[in-house]
């Protein structure tokens, strides 16, 4: 592989890797801090009950953050280990 090819592949790798890292981190932080800020500033937003008026929306939101975080980590590993690894392999040659 030529010097410029390898440079291009590396730039691509950095670009995509950073794109998912930054997007996913921002998503998690945004969700978490909006949860915290609602708890701190506007707890009444968590008052409505959902699912036939039995479960408060705050608890649904909270548990969803945990499940969504797990989902994002799986997605991240799939993208980084399966799709971006082809770029890493090219660079190793």
């Amino acid at each position, binding site marked *: 592989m030529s010097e410029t090819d390898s440079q291009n592949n590396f730039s691509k790798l950095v670009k995509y890797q950073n794109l998912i890292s930054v997007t996913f981190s921002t998503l998690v932080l945004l969700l978490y801090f909006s949860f915290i800020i609602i708890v701190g500033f506007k707890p009444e937003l968590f008052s409505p009950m959902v699912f036939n008026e039995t479960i408060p929306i705050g608890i649904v939101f909270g548990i969803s953050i945990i499940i969504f*975080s797990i989902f994002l980590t799986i997605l*991240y590993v799939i993208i980084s280990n399966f799709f971006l690894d082809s770029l890493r392999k090219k660079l190793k040659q």
Partner: protein
Amino acid sequence: MNLFLSFTSLLLVPFDIYALSDNKTTNNYAILTFLLFVISTLIITYFASKKTKNKDSFYAAGGKITGLQNGLAIAGDYMSAASFLGISGLVFFSGFDGLIYSIGFLVGWPIILFLLAEKLKNLGKYTFADATSIRLDQFYIRILSSVGTLLTILLYLIAQMVGAGGLIQTLFGLSYESAVIIIGSLMIIYVSFGGMIATTWVQVIKAILLLFGASILALMVLKVNDYSISKLFNEATSIHRKGQDILFPGQLIDEPLSAISLGMALIFGTAGLPHILMRFFTVPDARSAKISAAYATGFIGYFYILTFIIGFGAIVLLTNNSDYINTDGNLIGSNNMAAIHLSHAVGGDIFLGFISAVAFATILAVVSGLTLAGASAIGHDLYAYVICKGKTSEKKEIFISKISTIILGIIAIFLGIIFEGQNVAFMVGMAFAIAASANFPILFLSLYWKNLTSKGAFYGGFIGLLTAAILVILGPIVWVDILGNANPIFPYKYPALFSITAAFISIFLFSKIDKESLSNKHKKLFEKQFYKSYTNIEK
């Protein structure tokens, strides 16, 4: 090896005497399960000690741990008895508020995966300072990171020891001192003989036991409530003295700024815990490092959802039951006993014994990880790089690390006994604040910011560390509640928002005035490091 066996038998003798002593609170199932755990982990330690011959195996288990194993070990390292018993207790006491902690303790994990795991593994070998010192002056960076590491793990260790002593006193009918001594001695044996291999397996087994025990507990709770969450909430609100309030944010967060600050401490503190970061060096490559972080997130997230169900189950099944509740309406023992009492309520003496033994094993796994991280900071960072400037033999370095293990263990036992009955909860908060304000900023900026300089990291890191420590001391928890002053000098319980900001600003300023960043060599080194951090290829 003879040393190993004699040390081990010495330890088991006093244990047997206590275990067999006639004590009302002694649960034989607990002792049996726990002895089984101890014996099997000691056997593992024996075999691990044969493989623990060099630095690679002592610090990093030879890099032979798989992604799944490491994910379990990380979970075992991270899910402490405090989060199992403490959070389920908090849910029992005030419902929703427990969730705030659960989520906070979890969300650090995706961040570690997205920003740190791969690069850490590609750059480092045994401690996170290996990664941060690649392009910076070893001397400055290793001093800073070992001070950050040692403070974090000592505070964390003391809190674990004190909590463990009290817990085991209640569960096993041992005296406080002997509980602390048993934990301290076992941890010294695991770490000094079996290094990272033994520590990893102790953590893996503990994680499986804890996840299994908590799953059964939650399942029993759901079964009693016809597998209906609505019914669980309904029953809980009708019986709890706070009624409907337990479904909504309560008194835990009365002040928004504090809430944000606590959130930052939990997220960035987790991402700066040395014993956690160290685990990423035990896998063969960055691929497995990422996989292990994803597994860890899954296990830890699942576990925190369980603690929430367990807490609500405790409300339904324990409230108004005089077997578990004092006349004043609190749980017998303390509110931290919610999960323990619940295990008895749903599964009788056998299950109570199992969960108690799991709690004991949980403590052991966490303190072992902490001690190994502390010993590595002393042997690898301080001795080999700061004192010997990298010119020491492998044998000597391991020797120093093993001696440090024993010394740290003795210090932990000693301080654990001194702090008996003291309010040590602030120590965990301080450990997280320091990890978030010194370890994390340096690690993060060394990976991503090309203009970071050695002195910038050094002075900025120490400013972050000191700010965190001092603000905790001047804040309401230590200054008012512990030292008995009327008003806090610093008004917030959690300083992370301020100390992290102080760290980043001062690292930035000190790096700007440091001429190092202008040199060509500095730029070249960053390019090399940057390339390696994404590809694991030396450029």
